[in-house]
């Protein structure tokens, strides 16, 4: 082998650090294992050049540090999706000391397919048979020693959720990683194909390609025969004299196809599955079969043609009820906590610039955002439950028919559902959609799913202008309206800017599982933490900037002398930079019933939608005499809304549609690799928001609301 371990820097220092790549199919329990191995020592970043999330973590074991890199979940190493390319390139280019392939023991045959590809790559591999308890419950008995012998790589039985087998795994990782133990068995592709593979392998050797590409020559030969576009293109680009080899491979491919009646990729895929089936036949025994299958049973109900949709809608309704009903009480506690903090700060700080900055700018701004943490925690908890239980993919199936009408597929539903939590991960979740046009369309309409940051604005406005019984229904209506708009816009996009056929797709429906508390909490916490971090950084900064824009410059002192306190506050706001900007744009917003205060709040909302609430807090409570008067009451009494729900409703509609926050724009830019689509997103959302709000306000006014 050419790729000797000694050339790697990490190998020199007595292998005190072992680099581990964690691979596996989606749903094999990879994330659980990663969390179990690394605990809190994790770092989340991106793979270079692409936006696939890269999680890394460290753990120490018997004097060796294991540096674990979580690869994206994939079924194969053939580059049909970004995730697969990333996983493969990591193993080939960064050469981890050992690849740990997490395999669902209750679903061995499919899961081992990926393992065969690592074996072909001839890199050190350890297979983790995860969820052996589930396999046993299904009546499967696996002889791990025999399986290990047949596959030629170590096989460790494990239950990642309980930590069973963790120690044995760590031991094996250190041994295989330090000694770079390679697979002992090579997968054979049959008497017809093997001579051709050997022949191509020799030619690869002759040109010394393996040295220059740094990969096993046999693997390269197999990939060439499989006509792997990534490998062929890479070879063409990097090694000019390889064109002869490529031509030769094309001839061999044609020859194989004519002799076997099937092209090499089919024969190779077939042989891989044959190899696995052979190993499983010997190492796995079905002890008892035909037990009642829960997944079977639930699926006949939830994917039923008639019952599926009502069940889906009921699940969504339940989620909403839980998020808003259970969240109400803790919200109140946080609110009073920040009020008390503000009161405390007012009492101890001398009146003036600093007091205003801390009380109105910082405590008011950040507090107004953190109040919604209970709602957001519950929402992410619900989404994590839907994901981890296995219902998410069923929901995608149920709505696929509807999605197909608007030119999208069921998978687009997942980013849209996540969009209710936060648009940023929703845009990122679009990566799972293989088809480019579907992906872009989903990305463009996902912001119309009302994210959790918009919820504070709705709660504020609906709470102020509608009865408690009506407020919830109005908010639900706004959410529903967003979904309807998304459907319409997706249809329009698919027929105008992004036309073309939909690529069909395959999606796994994992068996139903009771989500573990630990898994749910980690999911919930990670996502909520993003929100809290945003409150601590971007929103804090935005609050201070907005506070500055709202309070500077001060109006001339001689003007203020004759004024009452309220008039002075008004003059302050009007004279400020923000007030000036708001006033300048006001004529455009006037037909929507918006005055300069709403306009100013909406401008501030560009930074993040929660900032709208904090800005309104500043705009409507500055210099307020009655300290205990809540913002909602202030809004009701303000001339802005004429005490009418219509303006509030129009504003909710505008907030629903217009530009998601700057973070989303930045994410879209990153995901699409350019400014075209983020700019398009800003343009269309603002335009649409204005038109729809105009209709709502004008029609509402005409009807006398």
């Amino acid at each position, binding site marked *: 082998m050419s790729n000797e371990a000694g050339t790697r820097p990490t190998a020199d220092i007595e292998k005190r650090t072992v680099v581990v790549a964690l691979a596996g199919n989606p749903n094999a329990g990879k994330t659980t294992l990663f969390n179990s191995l690394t605990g809190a020592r994790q770092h989340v970043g991106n793979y270079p050049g692409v936006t696939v999330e890269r999680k890394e973590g460290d753990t120490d074991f018997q004097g060796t540090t294991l540096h674990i890199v979580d690869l994206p979940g994939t079924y194969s190493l053939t580059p049909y999706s970004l995730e697969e390319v990333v996983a493969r390139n990591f193993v080939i280019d960064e050469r981890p000391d050992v690849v740990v392939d997490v395999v669902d023991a209750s*679903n061995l045959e499919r899961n081992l397919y990926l393992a065969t590809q690592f074996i072909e790559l001839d890199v050190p591999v350890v297979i983790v048979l995860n969820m052996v308890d589930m396999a046993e419950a299904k009546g499967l008995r696996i002889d791990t020693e025999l399986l290990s012998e047949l596959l030629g790589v170590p096989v460790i039985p494990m239950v990642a959720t309980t930590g069973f087998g963790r120690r044995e795994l760590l031991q094996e990782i250190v041994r295989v990683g330090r000694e770079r133990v390679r697979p002992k068995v090579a997968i054979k592709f049959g008497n017809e194909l093997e001579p051709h593979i050997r022949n191509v392998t020799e030619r690869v050797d002759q040109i010394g390609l393996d040295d220059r590409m740094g990969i096993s020559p046999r693997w390269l030969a197999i990939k060439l025969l499989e*006509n792997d576009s990534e490998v062929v293109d890479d070879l063409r680009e990097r090694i000019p004299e390889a064109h002869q080899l490529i031509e030769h491979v094309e001839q061999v491919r044609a020859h194989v196809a004519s002799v076997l009646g099937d092209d090499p990729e089919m024969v190779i895929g077939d042989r891989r599955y044959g190899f696995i089936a052979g190993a499983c036949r010997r190492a796995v025994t079905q002890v008892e079969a035909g037990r009642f299958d829960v997944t079977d049973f639930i699926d006949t109900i939830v994917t039923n043609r008639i019952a599926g949709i009502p069940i889906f809608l009921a699940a969504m309704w339940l989620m909403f009820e839980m998020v808003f009903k259970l969240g109400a009480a803790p919200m109140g506690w946080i609110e009073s906590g920040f009020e008390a903090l503000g009161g405390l700060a007012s009492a101890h700080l001398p009146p003036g610039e600093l007091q205003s900055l801390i009380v109105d700018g910082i405590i008011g701004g950040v507090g107004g955002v953190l109040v919604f943490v209970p709602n957001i925690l519950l929402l992410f908890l619900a989404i994590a439950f839907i994901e981890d239980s296995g219902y998410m993919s069923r929901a995608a199936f149920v709505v696929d*028919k509807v999605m197909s009408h608007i030119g999208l*597929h069921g998978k687009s539903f997942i980013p849209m559902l996540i969009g209710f939590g936060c648009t940023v991960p929703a845009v990122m979740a679009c990566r799972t959609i293989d088809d480019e046009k579907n992906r872009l369309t989903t990305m463009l309409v996902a912001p119309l799913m009302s994210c959790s940051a918009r919820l504070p604005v709705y709660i504020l406005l609906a709470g102020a202008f509608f009865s408690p019984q009506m407020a919830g229904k109005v908010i639900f209506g706004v959410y529903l309206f967003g979904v309807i708009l998304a459907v319409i816009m997706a249809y329009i996009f698919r027929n105008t800017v992004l036309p073309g056929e939909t690529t069909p797709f395959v999606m796994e429906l994992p068996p139903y599982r009771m989500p573990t508390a630990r898994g749910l909490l980690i999911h919930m916490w990670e996502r909520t933490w993003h929100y809290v971090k945003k409150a601590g950084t971007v929103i804090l900064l935005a609050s201070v900037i907005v506070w500055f824009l709202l309070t500077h410059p001060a109006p001339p002192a001689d003007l203020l002398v004759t004024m009452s306190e309220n008039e002075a506050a008004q003059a302050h706001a009007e004279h400020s930079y923000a007030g000036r900007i708001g006033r300048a744009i006001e004529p455009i917003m006037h037909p929507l019933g918006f005055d300069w205060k709403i306009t100013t709040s909406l401008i501030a909302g560009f930074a993040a939608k929660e900032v709208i609430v904090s800005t309104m807090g500043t705009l409507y409570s500055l210099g307020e005499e009655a300290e205990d008067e809540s913002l909602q009451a202030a809004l009701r009494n303000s001339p802005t809304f004429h005490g009418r729900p219509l303006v509030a409703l129009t504003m909710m509609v505008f907030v629903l549609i217009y530009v998601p926050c700057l973070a989303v724009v930045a994410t879209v830019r990153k995901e699409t690799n350019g400014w075209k689509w983020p700019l398009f997103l800003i343009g269309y959302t603002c335009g649409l928001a204005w038109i729809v709000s105009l209709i709502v306000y004008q029609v509402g006014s005409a009807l006398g609301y």
Partner: protein
Amino acid sequence: MPLALAEPAVPHRVVDVHGWPGVRGRLIDMGFVPGAEVRVVGQNGSAVIVELLGCRLMLRRGFANHIHVQPMV
């Protein structure tokens, strides 16, 4: 016959897989190789759910039509 037209709940065998290289390669990777046992376990207007190698996959009908199957005897 195309997989999308196979009778639900009845075990079938994969005979052949068609489609342009990307689609075909993906299907082969997912285990649709000649001889594999496959069963339709659910369907709606746009997609089918099949059981293959002990797990459930959802396929769009257009995709499922690239897979040719015959009932197992």
